[in-house]
């Protein structure tokens, strides 16, 4: 090891490697820094192309402006509600099904797995889904977002893999003591699965927090939108009711309004990210090993 490390070629490589990886880090982080700088800058400085890494003409006015828009807060609250409800339902559904699929002795198990896995490779497509949701009368309701995404097959397989890896002795002992399957799942299996449950909650919560297309497709009222659709309408230049269009200087303000809305949308994720990131990685590994 030592001898190889000391060759000149390897030293050169390490320097080059450090430069490349620094570049990767800079390129990844830069857009965030730029957006934060824009969100705190004076609109004229932005339009003059002066804002880069630090705010120019430092001001909180744009934040105040966005915060004074009631639609923004309604939409933000919607995002929170949708995320919580959808994650809760998805967790119950996924846990139940994954537990069933993890029981190797179960008759029909292969069929039950097949039903789920097949949907990873073939799906009905946009139009039939749209017609289905419309004809079920789910448009303009939270259920149009929650129900069609109640089980993610990837998450399902991750959980199944985890349950399969649990020691069976405890469950067997509980069964002999006369505990029902429901009791075993609730009182034996779930307490042992806190790590994977946390990971799954995070996976679902992030995906629901970030989702926008279902709401964009199925909702037509401003006060039902999640904040991502609010942001989408901003960046697409569509006016959202009372917010931007009503302002006299809309075009100028719009640039930093976009930045502020983006910052406010990603802040929850950025804040929890450093603490929960390792759970995500664990989840992916579980999925990769067995998937």
């Amino acid at each position: 090891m030592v001898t190889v490390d000391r060759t000149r070629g390897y030293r050169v490589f390490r320097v080059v490697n450090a430069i490349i990886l620094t570049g990767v880090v800079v390129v990844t982080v830069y857009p965030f820094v730029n957006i934060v700088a824009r969100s705190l800058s004076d609109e004229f400085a932005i339009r003059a192309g002066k804002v880069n890494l630090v705010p120019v003409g430092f001001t909180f006015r744009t934040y105040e402006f966005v915060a004074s828009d009631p639609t923004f807060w309604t939409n933000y609250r919607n995002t929170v509600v949708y995320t919580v409800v959808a994650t809760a339902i998805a967790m119950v559904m996924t846990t139940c099904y994954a537990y069933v699929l993890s029981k190797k002795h179960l008759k029909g198990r292969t069929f039950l797995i097949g039903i789920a896995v097949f949907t990873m490779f073939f799906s009905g497509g946009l139009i039939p889904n749209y017609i289905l949701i419309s004809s079920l009368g789910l448009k303009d309701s939270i259920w149009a977002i929650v129900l069609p995404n109640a089980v993610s097959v990837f998450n399902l397989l991750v959980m199944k893999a985890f349950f399969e890896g649990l020691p069976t002795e405890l469950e067997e002992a509980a069964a002999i003591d006369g505990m029902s399957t429901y009791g075993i799942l609730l009182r034996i299996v779930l307490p042992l699965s806190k790590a994977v449950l946390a990971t799954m909650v995070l996976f679902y919560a992030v995906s629901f927090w970030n989702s926008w297309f279902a709401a964009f497709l199925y909702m037509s009222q401003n006060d039902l939108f999640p904040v991502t659709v609010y942001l989408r309408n901003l960046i697409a230049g569509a006016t959202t009711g009372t917010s931007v269009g009503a302002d006299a200087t809309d075009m100028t303000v719009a640039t930093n309004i976009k930045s502020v809305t983006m910052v406010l949308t990603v802040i929850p994720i950025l804040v929890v990210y450093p603490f929960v990131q390792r759970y995500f990685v664990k989840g992916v590994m579980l999925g990769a090993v067995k998937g």
Partner: protein
Amino acid sequence: MSTTRTIDASPDTGDPRRARPDPARKQRPPRRTWRQALRRDWQLYSLAILPLLFFVVFRYLPMIGNVIAFRKFEPGGSVLGEEWVGLRYVKMFLNDPSFWQVFTNTVVIGALTLLFCFPTPIVLALLINELRGRRIKRFVQSVSYLPHFLSMVVVAGLVMEMLSVDGPVNQLLRAAGNEPIAFLQEAGWFRTIYVSSEMWQTVGWGTIIYLAALTTIDEQLYEAARIDGASRWRQVWHVTLPGIRPTAVTLLILNIGTFMAVGFEKILLLYNPLTYPTADVISTYLYRMGIVSNSFSYAAAIGLFEAVIGLALVMSANLISRRTVGTSLW
């Protein structure tokens, strides 16, 4: 062990207690009839009811709903259409020059994405793997995963701000004495923008699996290679790369399977009529045909075509890799 055996030996006593076959024992558990299985495991099956209902309603019904590709559908009418029209809509899009335009765009964007976004995580994983300090390694990884957690809307917003006339890229151009470019208004730039933003968003997350695979490579293989006098490069070539090959092949199959489903959401957010010539893909085209212009049957026919190609692609990729490399998804 003995308790397991007793329970297994009397599976049909109406006892809801479950037991699993002992894996150490070669003998398979006795085959049960459905009646026995239901009596024994009805509680387990009951847990599967709601999820199964979900799959049937929200995954398999839409598949059946695709029959409107062959039937005349009227908004407000029957969900499954009014009357059979055979291949009318299929012929319609096969004779539609705009369809072939978006088909080509889809293939080109899909191919570019595969070409650039499949290998980069491997390279990045190898580079990160060479880092020494554990903390610096963790830091680089954490930062590189971050874009994966952003909403597509935010990603699109970032792309627009970076490339706007007053944004950093144009600031650089100006500093170099060039005219600013309205990148998102020019069809010629769209593919570059799409692929590079895709790379920005996915490369870090893509390394996770490879980094995990790298840790499973037996250290003795490296030692043996060193004893044989292999240089660093040769070790990478002969030990590291073969070590992650199964992972890479699996991911390649998955990528090929989603080849046609190029980032619909991102394109929908980033394109505009000016960039349609290069940016419009099958999924966005059928979205405009179906949802915006209400030609549901026509759009469903295109969607079905796309889905069938996707399925065929993943199945053939799987078959080829099983025949040639010996790894496959199923």
